[in-house]
């Protein structure tokens, strides 16, 4: 810090294109499912969504995935 202003701190993975972007597999585009389906049919490993909280977890999609493999 200088003069009370926060100076930039470098982050572990820079977003500004340092070659690590190419680590993403070219297949990593979201593939739309023709009709929304349940998790078993989609054969997924994890769920990305805004409702993934502890409140309501027990009846959630993520919970079904977790329990299947423990």
């Amino acid at each position: 810090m200088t003069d009370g202003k926060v100076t930039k701190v470098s982050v572990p993975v820079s977003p500004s294109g340092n070659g690590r972007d190419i680590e993403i597999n070219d297949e990593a585009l979201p593939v739309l499912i023709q009709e929304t389906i349940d998790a078993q049919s989609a054969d997924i490993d994890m769920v990305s969504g805004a409702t993934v909280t502890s409140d309501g977890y027990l009846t959630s999609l993520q919970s079904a995935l977790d329990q299947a493999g423990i």
Partner: protein
Amino acid sequence: MPTTPPAEPETVPGVHRYVEHVMGMPISLALRGRHATTAAGRAAWSAVMTELTAVDLAFSTYRADSVISRLARGEVTLEQCPPEVREVVALGEEAAEASGGAFSIFLPDPAASGGPRRLDPSGVVKGWAAERAARHLALLHDTDFCLSAGGDITCRAASGSAPWRIGIEDPHDPARVLAVVPLRTGAVATSGTAHRGAHLVDARTGRPPEGIASVTVVGTSLTWADIDATAAYALSEQAVAWLHTRPIHSALVVTAERKILRVDPRSTIALAGHT
């Protein structure tokens, strides 16, 4: 004759899963490969949870005695805080600049425009903490991992492994998925209205944005995928255009009218789908 402990069992094929809760969210881990069930694998999982618990203690705005709460009240200065706090604040400033202020860790009071803002770095901390914690998993040799911190995901898989399959939740029906991202190494984060109890706001107005149900970003860094998903959600009708300017791999935007738009490096495709 001295007894020796039995050797670790042969690697059991398939995915092994672990789950615990911290910061009000489930932390779900899937491991595949050599250390999926070894002591080293379990130790790495334990280290992940220890780190996330420590982050919760320092950064929770719900805890009056957390470092971040004390900083917000002016009881400590930024230079008196641990370096991790300074790092998060710096990330917040960078994100505010990149998003034209739609994302900010200083949130306005919608009832008192122009009044003092409150410090809430939650939008940075979630993805940042998960990315940091995943470093323990990255040390496991010959082991693929997929770590979800409340739906923010960071993963790694060897080039010879099948990609992880990340389902994107339908924001209008969280029991269902509307898309799948096949991903070996990278990050996926989603921001949206379905988040019960959270108050995602456009930091320029302090009010919830309208028009977008959810944004999912796929990128190399979970810290930035999370920030970008949150910022895009706040930007509403500007979301797609803004996402095109970001160093992301791809994104999915679901509107309140249930239109689905995919952002990829070559074009924006309005997919022939509605949720």
